[in-house]
């Protein structure tokens, strides 16, 4: 492994860390320009006196300047302490720990199933160019662009839960995984197929053809490895979309996951929770993308277009 490859990989990692810091600052600022002070809001609901409001402000550290608050929060967060929920008076880290497994399970399963589905349909369409697989790739693409996941989720609930009565609704894992998986497959299948077809024009493919290598072997052994970096770049979009998709799926299927926690905190104006969950989800996505990009760098240090 060359030194440039390792330096490139480290640079990618450094960029992700910078992105996480930037996102933390943006979310911090956005949630502080919220119309009205959180304390005043709580006070109007709970009927606090002015003295109590001041005390609460001090407890929450809201009397300090924004940079100070940000610094204190970040240091605590790095130690695993995200503060206390304003609404439930519970440590936020506890709430996050209990919500994390559901989301990770849903996200990871959807990701694996979606990626395998997308890659295999794209490959099938590339290997048998005049087969219906092409139409399947097109259909998957239109499906994922046009059909919001919560609409598909409802359709699946109507079909599989209410009509066929195959499975229960609440806590169902496989339906949301199916919904998100098809969505992911649709996002990657077409770009991947387009990349493979672009690569088919290359000189190395002509050389292989001239040597008499079969079409299937050319696709699998020569073209696919060259399409790998762009596939890695696509996973970036997939992971970002997945973070949003899990929110609606958790709401629809009654999972108590991170997305649900985020949404409830926004609806209940529990901003300390919103801040923590949004930053954690975004950081996870960014770092996962950074890891993927790092692998891409190590595989192919010359490639500049990595995201």
């Amino acid at each position, binding site marked *: 492994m060359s030194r440039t490859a390792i330096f490139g990989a480290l640079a990618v990692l450094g960029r992700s860390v910078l*992105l996480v810091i930037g996102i933390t600052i943006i979310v911090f600022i956005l949630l502080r320009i919220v119309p009205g002070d959180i304390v005043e809001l709580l006070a109007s609901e709970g009927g606090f006196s002015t003295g109590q409001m001041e005390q609460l402000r001090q407890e929450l550290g809201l009397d300090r300047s924004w940079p100070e608050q940000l610094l204190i929060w970040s240091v605590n967060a790095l130690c695993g302490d995200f503060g206390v929920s304003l609404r439930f008076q519970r440590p936020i880290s506890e709430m996050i720990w209990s919500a994390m497994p559901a989301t990770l399970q849903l996200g990871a399963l959807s990701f694996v199933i979606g990626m395998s589905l997308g890659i295999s349909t794209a490959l099938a369409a590339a290997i048998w160019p005049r087969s219906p697989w092409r139409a399947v790739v097109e259909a998957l693409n239109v499906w994922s662009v046009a059909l919001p996941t919560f609409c598909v989720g409802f359709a699946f609930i109507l079909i599989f839960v209410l009509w066929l009565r195959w499975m229960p609704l609440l806590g169902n894992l496989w339906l949301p995984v199916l919904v998100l998986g098809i969505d992911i497959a649709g996002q990657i299948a077409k770009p991947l197929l387009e990349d493979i077809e672009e690569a088919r024009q290359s000189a190395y493919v002509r050389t292989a053809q001239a040597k008499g290598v079969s079409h299937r072997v050319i696709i699998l052994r020569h073209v696919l490895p060259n399409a790998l970096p762009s596939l890695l770049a696509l996973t970036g979009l997939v992971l970002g979309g997945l973070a949003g998709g899990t929110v*609606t799926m958790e709401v629809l299927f009654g999972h108590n996951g991170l997305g649900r926690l985020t949404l409830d905190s*926004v609806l209940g104006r529990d901003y300390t929770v919103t801040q923590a969950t*949004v930053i954690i989800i*975004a950081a996870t996505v960014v770092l996962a993308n950074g890891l993927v990009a790092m692998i891409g760098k190590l595989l192919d240090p010359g490639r500049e277009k990595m995201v």
Partner: protein
Amino acid sequence: MTLRSAGRLETAPFKLALPVSIWIATLLLVGAVLVALVGPELYGLDPLAQNLRQRNSPPSVKYLLGTDHLGRDIMTRLITGLRMSLLVAVLALAVAAGVGVVLGLAASAASGITSRVFFGFVDLLRAMPGVLLALVLVAALGSGIGPVALAVGLTFAPTFALVAREAYHRERALPYVAAIAACGAKPMRIAFSHLLPNIIGSIVTQTAIIFPRCIVTESVMSFLGLGAAPDSATWGRMIAQASRFFETNPTAVMAPTLALAGLTLCVALIGNEARRRLDPIQRHLAR
């Protein structure tokens, strides 16, 4: 990518031989726009009027699609919801394109440190999952038509900024820009009076790609309970409210779901076709 070498981006000669699916999608979309414009007035029922004796009633002559859990006419709510969806989506699109293109072009023309800082910020916003960004923006801006349109618009603005930058650098290499610069035009003037008219094609294509996403994001927001005013009829909210009763009244869920899926499908088909025809090199930018 060979298309770039020809200097100006050459597009295939425009043929009007559109696939049947696009014709159908266009007709349906035009119909939807007409319904959104005049439908609520023509149909004449109040989307908020409750008939508590007729809750969750099946389709009938009086209520074409039946009523929801509060006895409100679903057909009427569907029509006003269409107006709301299209209105918010168009406003959001205007915000996204306006903010994204103006700032993107200005930053590209400014070059140097300004450009770097701005596009670093753009990268930051794009690194955040879209729905999460919209969620935080709605939390910060509040709910209602304006704030939601603004939040959805700002979520998609970074994509337009990147399109503007790519188009800017593509055009700047061409001789006409050098000619204007030789006449003494300042970078900003070049960007906005001379480059902008030439890159409008890329921007329009991007609008066609982003529009269905605006519709979807708005519906997701209102489905999650963060959309326009709580009692106004939006499709996402109709779906969310009716979902509690879908065993007794499946029409109330299915009608807005199918309507939403149909609308986004039409818009997305048209957007795809526009992209395929007008700008084949942008495919990696779309998000």
